[in-house]
């Protein structure tokens, strides 16, 4: 199982905080993004935006980063702390 976490405006648009996916073999962050766009069409614009960051197990990841069973993936809109 892969746990996807949505934050801030993404959570509001997805109307969900967490979404879990059963995956057989490892996939890439890019492949996971396509799955999420299908399940949450409202997120498409943000997920395709260059300003969206993705984390895998709380480290920054890119399109090609592998996601395997047990991983936690964060979908992170632009930060505004400080």
């Amino acid at each position: 199982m892969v746990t996807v976490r949505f934050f801030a405006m993404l959570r509001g648009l997805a109307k969900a905080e967490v979404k879990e996916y059963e995956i057989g073999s490892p996939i890439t962050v890019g492949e996971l993004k396509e799955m999420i766009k299908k399940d949450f069409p409202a997120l498409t614009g943000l997920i395709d935006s260059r300003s969206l960051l993705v984390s895998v197990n709380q480290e920054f990841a890119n399109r090609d980063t592998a996601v395997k069973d047990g991983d936690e993936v964060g979908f992170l809109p632009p930060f505004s702390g400080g």
Partner: protein
Amino acid sequence: MSNLNKKGYYTVQLVRIQLEDFSIDQEVKNVMAASNGIGGVTIFLGAARDFSKGESITGLDFEHYPGMAEKKLLDIRERALNNFNIIEMGIVHRVGKIDIGENIVLIVAASAHRNDAFMACEWAITELKRVTPIWKRETTGKGDVWVSETP
């Protein structure tokens, strides 16, 4: 709140994310406990102001990615200690609801001489805004809106 530092002593936790307000005097005291060789301390305090991009603001609400945000702040302290000639650094960021005029974030950079403290402090707040998964929602006349970009 305490953590185990490199030397194995339990110390006050200098890097934290918390709901409660903080005291600048107390945080400075915690950082200065590191050494009697500290002569210059540069502090940055971020506070909740009543406008943003021309819009009037009546309150803020901060959310963070628990675990990852704390890790990023600890990492900023580590890199500041490695890359600047400072003795110690503390970082505290509040989350949850914050009223106008209240404290949001505090960076304390302590060194023997002031130049190093200024450089490290300014670097740390810039880096915090860049890499820390924290999000701000502003309460405006148009309702509550997530801030999507840091100015």
